[in-house]
């Protein structure tokens, strides 16, 4: 099974653990990822803040490239990238006037998008397209732990791009269950981690991350799984800062759902780059 792949900047940079574990665990499942050639940054939340139109055009360029390479479905593992690409895809497909406008800009770069690509988040693809049963069959080491799935915002919102309810999402929990874990229910599943606020307004940013961690801590979960590099960075990397800043103690190991998947499928910790997580050591304690 071949499927298009849009890694996004984070997965090529700081959060390469996500892409390593994604590729290796998908390989076990027999899914081959075909990277979009010459993809560019989706613009994240910064370029839209700077120039909304330019940001949308950047996302549209990626869609046009995918179409050029005949990729019908592309997977965007990063929620931010998924959100940008999927929303622009939705908007262009459903608004002929907008499609025309965007294509006018794209045509300057010799590109055109006709609307044949489907953008999917990696979790959605795994659960809803590949199939939970097929994953279950391949599980070698069931992860028998209480696991909190943290969905974040941009995978479930806004409505146009979401495949499920943003108030009570289920996909990642069903995956966790398939891998042998016990999903926990908590209020903060889709509460915002503050995204890049931690850079632009550190005080507020840390507070929002803390809110999320607090609500997970209440559930007595043993592991947090994430599906977005930004969420991951905030919960994982910033956990230590918050512990120091607010004088609290979480000791909550954070990992990508792909790392959990890889481990359950029998991959080694190194193969899923587990040691790259800052909270890796917590797991050992």
């Amino acid at each position, binding site marked *: 099974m071949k499927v298009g792949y849009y890694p996004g900047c984070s997965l090529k940079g700081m959060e390469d653990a996500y892409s390593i574990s994604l590729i290796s665990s998908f390989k076990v499942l027999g899914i081959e990822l075909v990277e979009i050639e010459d993809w560019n940054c989706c613009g994240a939340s910064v370029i839209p803040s700077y120039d909304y139109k330019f940001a949308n055009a950047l996302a549209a360029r990626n869609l046009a490239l995918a179409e050029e390479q005949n990729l019908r479905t592309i997977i965007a593992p990063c929620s931010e990238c998924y959100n940008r690409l999927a929303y622009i895809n939705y908007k262009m497909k459903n608004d*002929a006037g907008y499609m025309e406008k965007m294509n006018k800009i794209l045509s300057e770069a010799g590109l055109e998008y006709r609307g044949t690509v489907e953008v999917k988040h990696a979790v959605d693809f795994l659960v809803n397209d590949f199939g939970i049963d097929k994953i279950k069959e391949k599980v070698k080491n069931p992860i028998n732990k209480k696991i909190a799935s943290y969905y974040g915002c941009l995978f479930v919102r806004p*409505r146009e791009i979401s495949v499920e*309810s943003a*108030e*009570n999402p289920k996909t990642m929990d069903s995956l966790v269950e398939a891998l042998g874990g016990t999903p926990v229910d908590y*209020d903060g599943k889709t509460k915002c981690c503050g995204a890049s606020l931690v850079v632009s307004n550190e005080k507020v940013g840390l507070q929002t991350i803390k809110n999320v961690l607090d609500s997970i801590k209440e559930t007595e979960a043993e592991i947090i799984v994430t599906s977005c590099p930004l969420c991951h960075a905030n919960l994982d990397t910033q956990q230590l800062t918050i512990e120091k800043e607010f004088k609290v103690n979480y000791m909550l190991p954070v990992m990508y759902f792909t790392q959990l998947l890889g481990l359950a499928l029998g991959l080694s910790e190194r193969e899923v780059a587990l040691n790259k997580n800052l909270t890796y050591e917590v797991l050992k304690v």
Partner: protein
Amino acid sequence: MSEKEKKKNEEIRIGFFQCHCGVNIAGSVDVKEVVEYAKKLPNVVVAKDHMFLCSDPGRNLVKEAIKKYNLNRVVSSHCTPSLHQETFRTVLKEAGLNPFFHENVNSREHASWVHYRDKKKATDKVKVLVAGGIERVKHHKPIGTMRLKVKKSVLVIGGGPAGIQAALDLGKAGYKVYLVDRRPHLGGNMARLGKVFPTDDCPICILGKKFHELRQVKEIEVITYAEVKELSGYVGNYKVKIEKKPRYVDEEKCIGCLTCVSKCPVRVKSEWYEGMDVRPAIYINYPAQFPRIPVRDPEACINCGVCKKVCPADAIDFDQKPETIELEVGAIIVATGYEEWKPYAVEEYGYGKYKNVITQLELAQMLNPEGPTHGKPFKPSDARYDKKKRKLVIEGEPPKKYVFIHCVGSRDEKYFSYCSKICCMYSIKHAKMILMDVDPNAEIYLCYMDIRAFSKGYEEYYKQVQKLGARIVRGKPAEIREDPKTKKLYVKVEDTLLGKPIEIEADLVVLASTLRPSKGTKELADILRITTGEDGFLRELHPKVGPVDTVTAGIFIAGAASGPKDIPESVAQGSAAAARAMSLLGKGEVEIILNKAEVNQELCIGCGICETLCPYGAIKVHETHLGRKAKVSEVECQGCGACAGGCPTGAVMRRNYELDQMFAQIEGILRSAKEIFKDEPIVLAFACKQCAYAASEAAGTSRLEYPPNVFIIRIPCSGTIDIAHVLKAFKEGADVVYVGGCEPGSCAFVDGNLKAEKRIQFAKRLLDAIGIGGDRLEIFWIPAPESMKFAEVAKMMVERAKKLGPTPLRKAKAVKEVI
């Protein structure tokens, strides 16, 4: 033109009248210019404008002009035909002309309201439409009427306050009334409440009196636990099939002692009490219910037979079968009421997830003196079913802190955009009931967006609850969180008047959920050939001047079936519908206008295609002395025109939509459009008056803009469309043509839309084959409420016309003109 035709044309004297409609038309259409344009058109003898053409002076102007100028045709340009066509037909009649020598041009909904930003274009469009109307009216023919005897009996569907009132009014006036309810008893939702605002009296007391009256009036026959399954016939002479569900209790024998109910060992959740209480397998819903006959629930029943044994009247019969009752009635009143929407979809409030989040109707059951706790609210998380006692047991403290949330699902684009109208009041009522009767120290927060307490005595009622100390917070709560251990709820809301987010702790959260049309409303509407609106409620003929009428003559609506209503309004509507039925049936006969199908015996070849097309069996081929000829039963014909559209020879026509009339209108519009709109694309639309045309009216009312170069021709049903109409349109220079019909399954004439679809499919292929291009022709399903879709389709088709360019015919002509 032959001499004869010329002469005939010369005899035609048309008067044209343009209405200003205050500023509604004159504000964006240059009426004077339209009048000047009309004056120059052939056969127009006089053209005038008036501020309000529908007013007395306006109508007199038309009447006097008819006399003074010896007019024999009138074209009036104003609002949509569904509003004032009848008015001007009457004017013609009063002036001694046949009413059908009139044509209505829609210059408000189709021009001034939708092109209000561009006065020139709006004016141009009116001119084009006027040219079409004037050309058409030349071919109009007189249409007669016939008188029909009617049955002096009425079927009332739904036994809530509206239905009961209608039945009583009619019965007391001497009409035979069949009052049918789906439930095993009458009373509707009203019977489920403990108190009713604004007088706080007990609904059972009010209903009890009404039930007593029902028993007294012998003209009224109450049929409960029954549903309408089939309708045939026509105004004044409807035949209705009703299915009576098996009650498993013989209604004749039962004496209402309820011994069976008290002895039944089974307990299941009671739907009547919204699952707040339990009931036996053989049960009555409330003690005062009418008729006081129990019903057995075969699914819950364990067939132990105790009820049979204890019944002193031997009334219980496990072998009862559904029974079909056939009724003949002159009119039907639909009062099917509302039901509460269960707000599972509003997940942020956790209804269905958190036990202590309930709806207002559920709270009403707690507050009902006949309910599970006899009027004392409780926390559902504390309720437990005690198997030994066979009843609900409440353990724990009663709730102290309540949060009421208004507008749950309603006024929300994601769910229902309308206001449920009475939720503010019943929320206030429940707050008042708790503070007055249950616990004066209770903390009640009402989270509202706008308090709508508009009726008589309502504002005073609102003031009372404020005095009692209800805490009123302006803000729509964002989310509710539950403490899994204590089951306490935390409501997060921005108090918009304080301007800051607050969190309110609550024992019980009560959602004022949207009121929806009761289950089965759509199915019933389809059976009765009446329409529902965008909101799912039954649609009235006109929101202002026809609130209880429907598109089908002789069928009326009352109460919450047409939208959420309080009791006084429902009762008033019940009476209104009864009066409408009486005014229809009172004389014992009705006059029917024969704007129906007709067969030209000379042209008819007796092929029988019309027979296969008529959904009512109203047209049949008979053996005559001239050979086999089709004949129309004018009583049965509903005037959809499906037969005319399919007749191969043109023998069958739909009066007032005859081929020459349609051709004249098409020609008139397109000739004028080519002249006025020149190089712009020209799009011609044929719109079914039940749906697409109604949607175009709604687009007008909502001022939804679309390009002005879309010209709409009104047809009685999309099934009227004839391949000849389409070809003619292209011949006369239309670039794109489309037909708007009702959605499959909801055609007012059974399946006229599907017949139209086939013709359009064929015409598309034909156009492809002869080099015009099938892309230029399309059929769309545009339901009446979907004004947005109407505007979008219009936009899309103009875009398509631009993309495809002028038709080869127009192109060729343009080239010729240049040379």
